[in-house]
C-alpha cells in the first residue's frame, strides 16, 4: 500500500503530527494565544506555517536523488576548500 502523499493529508492530520512532534521535543506552543492577529505569534499562524513547510520541503528534498557514491553531504562547501595548489603563496 502506498502512503498518502503529504499534500493530501488534511490540516487536522498535519496539526496532530506537528503538535505531537513538538510535545515529544518538549516544546509547548499552547502558551501562545490560539488566534490573535495582534499577537507577535499565535498558534494559528505557527501551525499554518508548519503545515506549509511540511507539504513542500520534505517531499521536495526526498524527491531529489543524487548519486550517493559521488556526492558527499557537506556542511561547509566553500570553507572546506582549504587546500592550495602547488605554488600557492596564500
Amino acid at each position, binding site marked *: 500500500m502506498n502512503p498518502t502523499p503529504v499534500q493530501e493529508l488534511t490540516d487536522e492530520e498535519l496539526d496532530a503530527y*506537528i503538535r505531537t*512532534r*513538538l510535545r515529544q*521535543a*518538549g*516544546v*509547548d*506552543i499552547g*502558551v*501562545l494565544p490560539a488566534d490573535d*492577529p495582534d499577537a*507577535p*505569534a*499565535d498558534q494559528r*499562524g*505557527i501551525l*499554518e*506555517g*508548519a503545515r*506549509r*513547510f*511540511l507539504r*513542500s*520541503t*520534505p517531499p*521536495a*528534498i*526526498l524527491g*531529489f536523488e*543524487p548519486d*550517493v557514491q559521488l*556526492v*558527499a*553531504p*557537506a*556542511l*561547509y*562547501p*566553500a*570553507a*572546506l*576548500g*582549504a*587546500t*592550495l*595548489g*602547488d*605554488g*600557492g*603563496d*596564500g
Partner: protein
Amino acid sequence: MADRFPRDRPPQDRLVDRRRFLERMGLLTAAAAAGTAFAPTRGLALPASGIGAPTLPDPGSIQATEPWEMSVAELAALLRDGAMSPAELVEAYLARIDAMDATLKAFNTVDAEGARAAARRLGGSAWSGPLHGIPLAIKDNYYTRGVLTTANSHIYADFVPEYDATAWARLREGGAILLGKTQMGPLATSSATTPDGVRTTRNAWAPRDPTVDPGGSSSGSATSVASRMAASSTGTQTGGSITNPSSQQGLTGLKPTMGRVSLHGIVPLTYTRDHPGPLARDAKDAAILLQHMAGPDPLDPRTQGLPAVPDFVNAAEPVRRGSGVGLRWPTTVGLLPGHQDASEEGGGPGGFGRRSETPEARERRLRQAGERRAAEVAARRTMVATFQELGAQVVEVDLPPDWEILTGSDFNNVRLPERTEPFLDVLRRDVRLFGVSLSPWINGLLLSGPEYLRGQRAKMLLLQRVLDGLFARCDVVVQTSPIPFDIIGLPLLAFPIGFEESKGKGTPLPVAGMVGGLPFGEERLLALVAAYQAVTDWHRRRPADAPARGGGGDLGGEPPHRLDVLDVLETGQ
C-alpha cells in the same frame, strides 16, 4: 594610485586546487559529522593577520570638508597625519546620531561615553593603522564586552557579554571605536523590527516613508553608514543580510567566503551559513575592515586550515593602465541567463512585510518593484559596459542542471534545523521569547535527519556544479540574488551602480550591482569593484540629512507597521 602588485601574481581564487578541494570534501564532512565543526563557547582571540603599509589617499586630494563625509581611508590619512583627532571624529558622529537617530532608528544602543573614552585613549597613542580612531557601528548580534547585546530578541534582552566577538575584538585591536550597536531583524531573520515585529529602522534615503525597505537583517548597520552616522559598520549574512541592506542603501557590502571571518561570539542563526562582514562606503573601506576581521581563530574551527589572509587593502587599490584605470588582474565576468531581463516580478532583494500589507500597499509595492526592476536592468547594462571598458572580458554562462531545485526555497529550508538546535533549551522554556520570529525555529524541528543530510548532499552537488559550470569560463559572476552563494559559502560583493526615481515620491533610491566569486575570491571582487568605483561616483553620493523628530513635518506616512510570524517565515533569511 599605485601598482604595488606584479600583474603575474594571481589572486587567491585561482590558487585553490579544485580537484584536491573536491576530494577533501568527503573527509572533512566526516570530521564535521563527528562533532569537530562546533565552536567552543569562549576564550581569547588570536590577533588578525597583519597588513602591509596600506595606500591611503593624499590628504590634499580629499574633497569632503566634514569629517563624517569622509571614507575610512580618507579619515585614516588625516588621523595618521595628526590633522584630526579621534575625539573630534567621535564628537562629529555623536552629534549626527543625536540629530537624526530618533528618526532613523539605526541604533539599539549608543555607547557615547565608551566611545569618548576610547577616543581619548587612542588620541594619546601613536597611529597604529587605518582603523586607528575610526568610529564603527556594530550589529547587535556581535558580542561586545560590557555593552548590551540583544540581537533584537527577548531572549537576549538583558545580555551584557563578558567578552568580545572575535571579529569585533580584531577591529577594536586595530584601533576601531565602538559608537554603538545597530538595529536588526530579531535574531537576524527579517528587516529590523522590535522583537514583536514593529518596524523600527528607516531607509536613510527615504526617512519620511516607512514603506521603503531599509534592507535586512543588518538594517541599522546600513542606515548608520548611509546616513553618515558611522564611518563604517559590520553585519552578518545568512540569506542576503549584508548585500541586501547594502544594495537598498547605496553601500558596498562584502559577504566573505565561509570561514574567512570567525563567528565566535556572534549570536548564531544558521551555523553553516552565517557570515560576518563589512557594510562600507566603498571597496577600499570594505577591504580595510575585512583585513582586520579575517583570519584563523582557535575558537572557530570553520576558520582553520584555510588559505592565509591576503592583502585585501592593496587589492582594493585601483591601478593605472596607461592614461586610465585598469583591472589589477585579467578578469572574465560571467552573465547569467535573464541578467538583463526586465520582466521579472518582485520587489528587489528580500521582502518587507508582504503578508500583512494592505491591497493599496501591495499595488504600490508591485508598481515600484517594476520601476525598480527596469532601473536595475538599465544600470546593470551600464555596469557591465564599464567592466568591459576597464578591460574585463564578458561571457554569458549557462545555469547548471537542477538549478531551480537546488537553489529553490525547499532546499534553502534545509538551514532551519541549524537555527533550532542551539536554541532548544529556550524553545522548551518559553516559545514566546522568540516573538515574531518563532516559525522557522518550530519548522526546524520538523525536518528529519535523512532529509537534513540529503540537503547537505545537495549543497555539495550544487557547489560542484557551480565550480564546474558557472565558473568554468569566468572568474566572477554577476549576481542578482544572494542565492545560491549564501548556501554554499562563496563570496559576494554588492555596490551602488545608479539610482531610480520612485515616481510620485521624488525620492531617488540606490540601485545595486552584485558580483560573486570563487572560494576565497574576495581579492578579485574587491579589485574589480575598486576599479569600477575609480571611474564612477555612485558610492560617493549620500542622502540628505534626515529631519529630526518633531521638526521635519510628517515622518510617519502610515501607521506603525508590524510583521507577523508568516511574514517573517516568507521573507526572512
